[in-house]
């Protein structure tokens, strides 16, 4: 089939995110299962700690695993849509020659392999770090010693089932996408969104272009907001975690936040640049400078990033507040939880710096797009 190994490699984002999701979930679920095994040996005075640990485990794996899973689903659909958009000619020709939709869609199962690679990596990674994790969890020494066991059902739940589900999802989603009539595939589907946005004669062309570029790519606006949401929430949360839970949890949250945010940001911006390369090259032919092109194409995403950041801040604050008041309410000397202004400032400044640096890098890349790009594309 036409989907090559190279296309699957482009799914690196999904590999990374599913690896993170499974890594966290494996650690905590495995810990909970092992903890369950020694429930009988728990002394009454450690009961509250035991309950809190079980609860934390479930919440953490549900929240982070669930969020990350959702992200992977959205991202996978996005990739497939993008793949079909950028290969619509080939796919249209296949359809015109009489290949059935389901026959073409069936080939898309290979996208599921990215999930396999990611979940397997996350799963193995979790087992590597497990001994250290177990001893940190029981730093207080209140629980009896126990070591990590291997639970085959976790392998099925966290690796095999997601792989199968994602492969199936790829086929089903692409099947629906392939229902587009042949001619629309060959010529490009009229996109009602970008049509006829009331043309204001007095609005400068570059401003209009910026508006239309944003409007035509709402999913990317979402991704950029999501990236800044992840960064904001996870990094600020990691400051709180250091006091509330353990250094290790804090470091893990921090890492996941950073990885998730930058993977998403990177994918979104790469897509923006790649899908506009042709237009940029035409504009350069006519004499628009690289700077004009890149500001029209990249500068519109700042408000989305800012909004994501604010939501992330509120989200982490509420989440930790609830955690402290509900989960740890029976445990003594849990530190008082307050909004951490210092963390907010650090997160905001570091994100702004990285965001602008990434955008600067990419506007350089737009600057380097050659006027011949469009001519190569047409051939």
């Amino acid at each position: 089939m036409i989907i090559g190994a190279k296309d699957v490699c482009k799914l690196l984002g999904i590999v990374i995110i599913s690896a993170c999701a499974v890594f966290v979930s494996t650690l905590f679920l495995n810990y909970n299962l092992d903890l369950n095994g020694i429930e009988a040996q728990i002394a009454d005075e450690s009961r509250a700690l035991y309950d809190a640990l079980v609860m934390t485990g479930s919440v953490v794996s549900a929240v982070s695993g669930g969020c990350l899973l959702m992200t992977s689903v959205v991202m996978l659909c996005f990739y497939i849509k993008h793949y079909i958009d950028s290969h619509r000619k080939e796919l249209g020709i296949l359809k015109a020659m009489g290949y059935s939709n389901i026959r073409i869609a069936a080939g898309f199962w290979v996208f599921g392999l990215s999930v396999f690679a990611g979940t397997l990596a996350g799963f193995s990674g979790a087992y590597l770090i497990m001994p250290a994790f177990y001893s940190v969890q029981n730093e207080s020494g209140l629980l009896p010693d126990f070591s990590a066991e291997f639970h085959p059902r976790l392998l099925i739940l966290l690796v095999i089932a997601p792989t199968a589900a994602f492969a199936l999802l790829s086929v089903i989603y692409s099947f629906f996408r392939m229902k587009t009539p042949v001619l629309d595939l060959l010529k490009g589907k009229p996109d009602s969104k970008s049509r006829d946005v009331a043309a204001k004669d007095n609005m400068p062309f570059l401003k209009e272009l910026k508006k239309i570029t944003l409007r035509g790519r709402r999913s990317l606006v979402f991704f950029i907001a999501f990236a800044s949401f992840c960064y904001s929430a996870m990094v600020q949360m990691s400051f709180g975690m250091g006091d509330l839970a353990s250094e290790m949890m804090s470091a893990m949250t921090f890492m996941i936040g950073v990885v998730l945010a930058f993977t998403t940001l990177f994918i979104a911006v790469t897509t923006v640049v790649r899908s506009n390369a042709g237009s940029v090259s035409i504009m350069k032919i006519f004499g628009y400078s690289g700077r004009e092109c890149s500001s029209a194409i990249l500068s519109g995403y700042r408000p989305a990033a800012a909004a994501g950041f604010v939501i992330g801040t509120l989200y982490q604050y509420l989440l930790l507040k609830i955690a402290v008041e509900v989960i740890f309410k029976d445990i003594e000397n849990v530190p008082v939880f307050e909004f951490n202004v210092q963390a907010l400032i650090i997160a905001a400044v570091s994100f702004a710096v990285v965001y602008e640096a990434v955008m600067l890098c990419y506007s350089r890349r737009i600057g380097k797009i050659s006027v011949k790009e469009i001519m190569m594309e047409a051939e």
Partner: protein
Amino acid sequence: MIRAENIRKSYGTRDNRCEILKGISIDIEDGGFTVILGASGSGKSTLLNVLSGLERPDSGSIFYDGENIAELSDDSLTAFRRKNIGFIFQQYYLLPNLNVDRNVKMGAELAGNKDYADIINALGLSEKRRKLPRELSGGEQQRVSAARALAKKPSVLFLDEPTGALDEETGRSVLDYICRLRDELKFTVIMVTHNANIADMAKTVIKMNSGKIVGQYRNQTQKTAYEIGW
């Protein structure tokens, strides 16, 4: 005055190198109408790209009023095109997400031209102003491409098969409109075509074959778009 001296251009990697332009020298006078004729694959489009500063030659010089654009940096070359050059491409190259109006505006704004609607109407596109390129026929796209180039008010207009996708009647009217604008605005026209009849409209005709100039002549009288054969 545009003067090209001994332009060479090759494509491909070292083992598989192929010389497309094999030492081309031409002079093109300001405000003139020059047609370049030649078989498919003879290097006409490549020559146009090099002359217009879209591509650098491997060697040779291209002087615009004494300034060698082959030596300009990328940024200066872009600024040069912005100020001087208009294109109508063989493959149109419209911005796919923008409607006809905005595609033309893209060119018009570079020249501070606010009256581009006249050009759209003159090219018979007034009904299509809100359509996206993919909703247009090939010939309509070609006319949008022409409107965009003309709205830019260039001092040199490069045309690569500007009537390739047009029927006789529309083709004649587009050529006629370009000529009328040229009389008014006095820009230089350099046109590539397969259609030897169109050469009768030109002042200077250059014939190319396999990357070389094989002939050049001047027409005593220039026919109009409605007088030439088709």
